[in-house]
């Protein structure tokens, strides 16, 4: 080997290197502002680039790291699958709770009762604009549904503060200043902020006063996620523990979503309730529901990540206890726990229209004990909707169809038990 002039490392030096790398860029954001050079190029910006971001646009810059061509499955912090890795018939690969933006590129064409139908990928999620990555503006909605936010401005930084200035202080309040951010606060394993320090807010989400294109957030929602969160749920579920907090710089989850979608919020509008307690009837049904025709479940093991709820707690320690991926925390809701937007929708994108967690375009989500597909249930194209059985299973985060009833009805029934 020729290059002895530079840093020469051998396996024997691994111990020393451990010291050298500790605290380096693995986490990158570390709950706050990351290394500037990871996103900005101070001396060689693109012609016409803004903010010295060399990516064509803000979201393309984020996806420089958060998408990686060559992935073979869920991969840590990747939230999008490259075009090269998802040919026709292959589902996007990532399984984060927010969902893989790659679903936005999955158009499906199928024929139902003689009528050819196309389900556009853009109906599957938030249409971030990332030109370098092939993500384009929503062609159907000029503004956020139920609001005025312009669709042609939608980017990762519409919801996330790229510099991660919002922090949770030792007293539990959210602030943009007050103490240095020492690490992420998103994970079950994240340390609680000690006096004089702070941790980042959940997922660097936008907080009070964060303004983008005419909308201003009024707080940060509370949540915790398992440290290993981008994973298949074929064996165990990934439980994101959503909380309910509205004081001290916090916002409840759906109130936060309503920053851009105000008329989708239940206050004064004829829409499904959100940010409201489930009540004892719904909570009881959730606990009893196993699958269509089976109400023999027990509340202690009734949690379903395809229909999560917000735990009525602002205690991050309690939320961290619930945020597990090993099925050790499957307790269902109490009557004061809340339904929220994310009970039915994923935040980024899903395999289904309206970024729903399940296919709501038909009465069944399974057919004769299998996931519907052009290959598995060719006689029922209305349920496959152009997907292969494998794609359908991927959209349910790889659960076996036997998780549900042979003819499972849509998952509205997890709370409403009409089946």
């Amino acid at each position: 080997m020729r290059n002895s002039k530079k840093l020469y490392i051998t396996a024997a030096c691994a111990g020393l290197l451990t010291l050298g790398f500790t605290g380096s860029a693995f986490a990158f954001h570390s709950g706050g502002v990351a290394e500037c050079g990871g996103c900005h190029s101070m001396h060689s910006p693109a012609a016409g680039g803004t903010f010295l971001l060399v990516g064509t646009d803000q979201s393309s810059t984020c996806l420089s790291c958060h998408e990686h061509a060559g992935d073979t499955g869920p991969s840590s912090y990747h939230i999008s699958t490259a075009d090269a890795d998802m040919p026709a018939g292959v589902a996007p690969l990532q399984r984060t709770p927010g969902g893989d933006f790659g679903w936005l590129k999955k158009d499906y064409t199928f024929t139902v009762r003689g009528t050819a139908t196309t389900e556009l990928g853009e109906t599957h999620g938030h249409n971030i604009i990332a030109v370098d990555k092939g993500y384009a503006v929503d062609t159907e909605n000029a503004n956020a549904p139920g609001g005025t936010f312009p669709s042609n401005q939608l980017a990762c930084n519409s919801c996330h503060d790229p510099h991660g200035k919002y922090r949770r202080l030792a007293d539990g309040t959210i602030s943009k200043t007050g103490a240095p951010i020492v690490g992420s606060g998103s994970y079950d394993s994240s340390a609680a902020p000690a006096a004089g320090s702070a941790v980042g807010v959940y997922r660097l989400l936008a907080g009070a006063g964060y303004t983008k294109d005419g909308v201003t957030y009024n707080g940060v929602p509370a949540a915790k996620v398992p440290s290993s969160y981008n994973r298949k749920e074929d064996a165990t579920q990934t439980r994101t523990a959503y909380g309910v907090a509205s004081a001290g710089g916090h916002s409840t989850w759906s109130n936060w979503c309503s920053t851009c979608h105000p008329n989708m919020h239940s206050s004064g509008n004829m829409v499904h309730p959100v940010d409201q307690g489930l009540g004892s009837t719904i909570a009881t049904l959730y606990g009893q529901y196993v699958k269509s025709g089976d109400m023999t479940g027990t509340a202690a093991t009734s949690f379903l990540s395809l229909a999560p709820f917000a735990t009525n707690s602002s205690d991050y320690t309690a939320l961290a206890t619930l945020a597990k991926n090993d099925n050790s925390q499957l307790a269902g809701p109490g009557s004061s726990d809340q339904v929220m937007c994310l009970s039915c929708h994923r935040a980024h994108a899903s395999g289904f229209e309206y970024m729903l967690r399940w296919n709501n375009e038909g009465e069944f989500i399974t057919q004769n004990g299998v996931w519907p597909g052009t290959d598995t249930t060719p006689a029922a194209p209305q349920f496959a909707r152009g997907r292969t059985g494998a794609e359908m299973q991927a959209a349910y985060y790889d659960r076996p169809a036997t998780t549900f009833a042979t003819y499972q009805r849509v998952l509205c029934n997890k709370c409403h038990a009409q089946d």
Partner: protein
Amino acid sequence: MNPNLKKYITSLLVAICLLLLSGKQALAQFAEGYLYNLSNFTGVVPYSWATLSVDEWQNEVYVVYQNLVTVFNDNGMEVHSFGDSLDIGHILDVAVEENGDILLLAFNDTKSSVFRSNYRGEPREEITLQDLPPEFAEMHANRIAYREGNIYLASEAQMKIVIVDAQGRFIKGFDLIRIMGIPEKDRADAGFSGFNLDKNGNMLFTVPVLFTASILSPAGEIVSFGKPGGAPGKFNIVVGMVVDSQGNYLVADKLKCAIIVFDKDLNFIKEFGYRGEKPGNLVAPESLAIDSEDRLYVSQGRKRGVSVFKLTHG
């Protein structure tokens, strides 16, 4: 003036001049010229981040994209394609052996498999990996390379590399987490990119989250270089990496949209490319490949396809 001071200043000036001359010489020695983008009879093929590999004996380039392997000749024209009708899983990468046989790396949801096909891409046999130690048994390779009878398999996500012989028998394995001294808890968040080989079988790769590029010898010795930053020669998000016939290392930076060139001693020489619409500009370059005539192939995003440059050395 104090004679010693005068002598010191003279020496300093001479040293600076030599340094400048040395730098200019390096700049003069390396040059790149944009040739064309890989094309077929309908025009430039609009790939986004296709995976590249080269048949160094025939100087053909293989492009893997959405389960289709397309072969381009040394003029950048498509001459053959295969893969879309194969039932071996999702083709991730290919490598070519001396006799023209093609090694196909495929993934079928649960595991990686290696197949040997003829020059037309028709699979002839599956190469079963044998005698893998437990720490490599569950490896999901997503990159493959070939050198002098040995097959290199790399898992970028798991940060592992194994070398097997032509029949799949284990020769050696490398756990980069251990070699680089990265804490085990950070394995999932680390990952490497740009896996390639040089002519001596040294393994080249980048670790984007560390802003470094590395050269790993078959003996397990590793050299890492690079610092974060936007200045010329520094790294933003580094991905692909190759070495040219003169031993110069070329590293793709997909955020900077540039190819960063270092000489064989890892001294920075120059950058080229940069975002733009002109010929020779690059948009988010990622995978790199280089043939025996020093034609550099650069895979880009935004459906910009694969740009080809000719490297010269003064």
